[in-house]
Structures are given as structure tokens and as C-alpha cells.
């Protein structure tokens, strides 16, 4: 049997490549991200998730194919009942290889991860501060740069970097607009910050993503991303 390993490795290798593509395709279908990339952060995060799907597909195919191949090629056939497998119990070179190579791969993914993190959290010029307050089970918004008023819907201008300055009144909450991708908890006694730049005009929903009691599922707020002119008009309306 040992002499045939070269042939087995060849077949398994081809299957690993094929299955990497198949699994990647299946995962793309199974893990659908929201169609709308509503913020400057969305595309970077979606790309990062896409790169991780390739990692899942590649590593998954490697293990599943070799396992599946062994199940088929190395199964005990009728008449083999008393036969034992080939006797070998380790290979230091291989073990070192599959320690070092994954180490390199995760390092690469780590570096990519740090870069994307820096990109999606970087402070921007021209940031507009919105104060977000979470309480059981509603949201309040204030616009300190535009005057003294509070709203229950969030209205922001498109393509303007936002600095959300957030606090919780009672328990933990978490700010999450699916189309914007990023999220951040609100903590009583602490001000937390989230940077996001909405890039799509439209009406979205803010949902609380941290279990906060009875009506947590319904702790929602409307979010409207509008043009700068519409935003200015809305501000004027609020100040009246």
C-alpha cells in the first residue's frame, strides 16, 4: 500500500483544490451579507469576511477531503477484517510543517485584520458628533454642534464622518445598524465611541445588539441618511 501513496496524494491534492472552490461557493451562498453597504466601513469589513471565507474553504477542504478520501480509499474491505493498517506513527517534518505554515497563515490574517481595523476606526477630518443615549427600551439622539435638542430618530447627512458619543442610562445596550456593519456597546457610567461614515442615502433601522431586558428585541430606532441640504433643513426644523 505504501508504494501507492504518491498516487493517493495526487488524487487527494486535486480534490482539495476542487473542494476549496466548491466550499467557497457554498459558503458564499450560505453566508449572505446584507446587499446594502451603507457606510465607508462596510466594504472593508465585507472584504475581510470574504477573505476569511477563503480561509475556511481552504482549511476545511484540506481536512475534509483527506478524511473523506481515507474513508473511501482506506476502508476495510470484506475479507480485511483482521488486517491492520500501515505501521507508521509520526513524522516530525510534517508536524513542524503543519505547525509553522498555519502560524504563518494566521500571522498574515492577523496583519490584514489589524490593517482593516485601523482603516475602519481611523479618525477623520470634519467629523460630526452625534450623542447617542440608550435606555430601556428606546434611543435618544442629540446634535451638540447644531443646538440643544433631542430626537428619537437619527438623521444624519450622507458621506459625513460621524463620531458617535454614546452612553447608557440603565443597563448595557449596543448600537448596531446592519447596513453600516460596525457595532459598539453603550455602558452606564462610561462614554463609548464609534466612528462610522454613512455612504448610502436611505432609511435604516438601529437595533440594540446587547440583551437589555424585557423588550430588547424591540429596542429599535429609525435612522435616516439624507443629503446635506435635507439635513440642514431638518436641523432648522428641529431648532424652531
Amino acid at each position, binding site marked *: 500500500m505504501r508504494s501507492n501513496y504518491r498516487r493517493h496524494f495526487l488524487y487527494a491534492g486535486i480534490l482539495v483544490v476542487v473542494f476549496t472552490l466548491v466550499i467557497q461557493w457554498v459558503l458564499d451562498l450560505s453566508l449572505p451579507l446584507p446587499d446594502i453597504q451603507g457606510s465607508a466601513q462596510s466594504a472593508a469589513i465585507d472584504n475581510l469576511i470574504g477573505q476569511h471565507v477563503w480561509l475556511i474553504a481552504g482549511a476545511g477542504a484540506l481536512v475534509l477531503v483527506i478524511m473523506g478520501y481515507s474513508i473511501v480509499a482506506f*476502508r476495510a474491505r470484506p475479507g480485511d477484517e483482521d488486517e491492520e493498517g500501515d*505501521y507508521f506513527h509520526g513524522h516530525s517534518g510534517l508536524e513542524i510543517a503543519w505547525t509553522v505554515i498555519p502560524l504563518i497563515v494566521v500571522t498574515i490574517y492577523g496583519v490584514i485584520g489589524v490593517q482593516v481595523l485601523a482603516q475602519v476606526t481611523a479618525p477623520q477630518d470634519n467629523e460630526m458628533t452625534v450623542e447617542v443615549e440608550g435606555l430601556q427600551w428606546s434611543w435618544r439622539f442629540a446634535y451638540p454642534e447644531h443646538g440643544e435638542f433631542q430626537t428619537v430618530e437619527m438623521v444624519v447627512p450622507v458621506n459625513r464622518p460621524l463620531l458617535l458619543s454614546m452612553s447608557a442610562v440603565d443597563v448595557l445596550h449596543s448600537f448596531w445598524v446592519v447596513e453600516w456593519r460596525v457595532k459598539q456597546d453603550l455602558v452606564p457610567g462610561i462614554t463609548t465611541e464609534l466612528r462610522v461614515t454613512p455612504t448610502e442615502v436611505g432609511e435604516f433601522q438601529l437595533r440594540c445588539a446587547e440583551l437589555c431586558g*424585557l423588550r430588547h428585541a424591540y429596542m429599535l430606532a429609525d435612522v435616516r441618511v439624507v443629503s446635506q441640504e435635507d439635513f440642514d433643513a431638518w436641523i432648522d426644523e428641529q431648532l424652531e
Partner: protein
Amino acid sequence: MLMQLGLTRGLIYQAAGTVLGMVVTMVWRLLAGMPLWDQEVVFVVGGLVGGFAFMWGVGAIDDWLEWCRGKATPLVHGPPRDKPAWTRYFSTDYNHKVIGIQYSVTSLLMLMIGGSFALIFRAELAQADLQFLGMGMYNKLIGLHGWAVIAAILLGVGGMANYLVPLMIGAEDMAFPRLNAFAFWINVPGGLLLLASAFLGGFDAGWTAYPPLSTQGSVGYQFLFLAIYFVGLSSILGSLNLLVTILTMRPKGMDLFRIPIFCWAVLATSLIQLTATQAIGTAFLMGLSERALGMGFFDPEGGGNPILFQHIFWFYSHPAVYVFVLPGLGIISELLPVFSRKPLFGYRWIALSSLAIALVGFLVWGHHMFTSGYSPYLRVPFMVATLLVAVPTGVKFFSWVATMWGGRLRFPTPMLFTLGAISVFLLGGLTGPILATVASDLYLHDTYFVVGHFHATLFGGFVFPFCAAIYFWFPKITGRMYNEALGKLHFYIMTPAFWLMSIGQMTVGTMGMRRRIVDYDPTLGGGLVEARHLETTIAAFLIGLSILIMIYNLVTSAEIGVRAPANPWRSRSPEWQIPSPVPEHSFAAPLQVVGEPYDYGLEEEYVVMDESQAGHAQAH
């Protein structure tokens, strides 16, 4: 008859102790000039006294009390003299095999209770909108499901370790048999307190019990905190016992790199349990005293910080994940060589990878907190540390497939569950790095994707291997074979159903559905979210059905199964070289190690009995 069972006495004592504790607290409060009734304090003292009263009633501290009085108590083996043999399973018994079965059966019971909670809210989630389950009930069931199955997993881990470790290293029993019995029985009042919390308003902050929600909720939280205190005490004592057993009770010639690989997994697991469990004890003790005594650990008004709780909580609860899965991975490593008829590939690498996972596991807790609001500078170190876990885990996967490569594989039920475990744990493991990477986690955190990820991890790392272990050692435990057709039916229902459920959970997560919500927006994922939920619910019920098939199989086969030979799997491990079921004193003579544990394909044995010293074991 019922009154002769330690369990019955324990339950009566617990009920009486709880009432007594409550009454004494109230009288003391009255004498101290305080209002009679303060539910927080009264229930805490009642629960605590009740728990220890149970231990007294069940007889788990009898010998120690005798010692306090200066009397020696011999360690009596065998079934009780004046009662039927089955009663020993419901009373304090010092034999590790009895205790292992007590652990395992209790584990299955808790698994079914916890699973049933999940089926209730899965039924609710099959459709968007509110159906039959109220919002409050939903929020309580998710936490109860979480803790009930975690308790079940800890019990299952204890069951496998207690039954197998002494048999695998040829030890007469565990190092501290009385402590062993104590460590098992303390779980029972713990589990009862956990379930009883539901009657005191439950806990509605999920299993994580984050304050301030958990410090504001009903008094049910106090029973949760106490319950985990008891269960945690069991972990600490049990792991101490296992460490001492593995390190000091091996026969001559069995050096650490010659023990069956499952023992390495238990060694790594026990190191975590012995050193990390205190952290959740601390977190919950702080929560308990903030509620009962007004200490402001997590209350910003009192100078506290809610995020502090999360740090302490996850300092245990992340390593705890490795407590849940490492023994299961050990079972995989243990069973693959037997059914591949080939040596375990890279024994030392697999052994040391368990230790590596255990050690790195202590440095990654912050990956649960990327969005928590802690210092942003902490994010990258925790991300890097977490990604590193992939390396030793990868070593395991590659060594497993290399073990199968070139073997002569056969596929009875335990092997099927082993292969199922590898595939499911692979799904759980590979969906880890995407959550460990901060930027992608900012999207996926607190979504159903996380739910899919950790269910795959725990099914692959515990449920599938546990099933494999049950089928594999069933003949050794009962002396009878399980029903192979029913075993395969269980596998072929549970595995596809689990894949459907887990992928379904991940799908609705990437679509944008949050976790821990009773109702979801049906327009998510282009309106497909509801269909995925329906599939997930059906799959969950199929898993429940398959577990019932297993229970039926085990119960009937124990009665009418075909008599099992001593070694039906042709395993080299010591426990298969002795009769089935294992006699009261497992080994008639001390073991002698003459070979390697996994040298399938070689003639020479791993262990032989030193017949010249037969009878020595009992004399000891």
C-alpha cells in the same frame, strides 16, 4: 425503600436546610432590629445552607465527620450489604466506576432538560413575530438553556474522566475516593438550585449574566450564582483529584508520554479547571454581594464598572470552553487509532497541543469584549492571541487525518460519531478566526453567527465525542452490546440535522439577525430569514429525536443486548484487557507496561498483568 437512598435523604435535608437557613436569617434580622424580610439575603442563606444540608443528607461527608471525631473509617468497596445493588447509584459510593456512571447519567439528564428549553424557544423562532412565548419567558429560557447544558457538559466531562482515567492508567481507584464522591454530589444541589431559580423569577440576562441587568433582575439570579458556586466547587475538587491520580498513580514504566492520550486531554482540562474556575466564582460572588449587600462593584453610581464583570467572567468562561472540548478531542484521538487499526499519528504533538491550547486559552478572554467599550488598545493583543489558538488546534486536525491515512478503517457507531465530531468541530473551529478578527467581529458580534459558531464547537467538541464514548465503552460498562442499527440511525439523523441547524444559525447571523431576541425582522436576508429559521427549528427537533433514540437504545440494550466479549474493538488500552463489565476491583494484578499504547500493527502488547503479584491490588 426510597428512604434508604442517599439521594432521597439528601433532597429532604436540602429542603429542610433551605427552610432552616431562611428562618434563622429572618430571626437574626429581627433580633438585629432589621426588617424581617429581605428576599436577597434570606434566599442566599437558605440556598447555601440547603446545599450543604444535601451533602450531609446524602452521606458525602459522613466519613469526614467520623474522622473529626477521631474514628478511622475503612474504605468499603462493593455494593451495600443490606440493600439491592442498584441503590449504590443513588447513594454515596466511593468506587470511581459508580461515580463515573453517576456523572454521565446526570449529564444526559441535564442535557435533555437543557435541550428541551432550547426546543421551546426554537419553536417560537420558527416564525417571525410573537407566537406562544412571552418576551420575558424567552429571555429567561435562553439563560437557563445555556447554564443547564453547561452543567451537563461539565458533568459529562467528569463522567468520562472519572470512569476512564483510573482504568486507563491501571489504577485501583482515584487518588481521593471520598473527595471524588463529594465532587459529584455537590452538583446535585447545584443543579437543583439552577432549575429552582426559574421559580424565583429566573434570570433574564442570558447565561453571561452581565450587570447591570443581572444586578437589577429578580432574586432568581441569586440561585443561579449559588448554583454555579456549587458546580464550580465540583470542578475544582474533581480536577485536583484527577491531576493527582494521573501524576502519581501510574504503574511502573508508564511515563507521561506513554499514557493513553485521553489522559493528556484530562490533564490539560484539569489544569484549567483547577486554576480558572475561581474567576467565575469571584465574578458571581461579586454579583451576589452587590445584590444582597449593596456593594457597588459594577455600579457606576457606587464607583464600580460594569465592564469589570465581563473581564472576570470571561477569564473563566473562555478557558472553560476548552474544558468542554479538550476531553472530547481526547476521545477522538483515543478512538481513531482503534478503528483505523493504525498508530496515533504524532502522539507527543497531540498531547502537547492540548497543553498549548490550555495555556493560550488563558490569554484570549478579551475577544468576547471587542465591542464592550474597554480600551481599544486591548483589541489587537487579544486578536493575535486568539488567532494563535488555531495553530495547536490545527496540529490536532492534521494528526487525526494522518492517523486515518493508510489505515484499515471500519465504521461501527463509535467511529461514525468520531468522524462526525471531527467534521462538526472543524466547522466550529474554522468559524473562529473570523470572530477573533476585530473588524469582522464588529459586524458578527452578538449575531446568530456566534450562536452557530459555538454550537458547532460544543457539539463537535463535546456532544458528538460524548456519544462516541458512550457507544464505545457501553460494552465495557454493562457487559452487553448496544443495538448497532439504532446507533447508526441516531448518527444518520443527528449529523445532517446538526449541520443544517448550525449552518442555518450562521446564515441568519450574517443576514444581520441579532442573538437573544424573541422576534426578528422577517425582511432580513431578502425575506429568506424565516425559511432558514424554520429549517433550523426542524433540525433542532430532529436532534432531540435522535437523542431519544440513543436513550432508548442504551436502556433496552443494557437489559437485552447481546453479551459483549472483553474486547470487542480489539483495543490495546488497559481497560479492554479486563472482563466486561469491569469487576469491582478493576485489575486482578498490577499492570506492567511493555509497549506503546497505539502500536496497532505490532504484535507486542501495551500492558500485561503482572500475575505474580495477583491479589496485591485488593490487599492494598
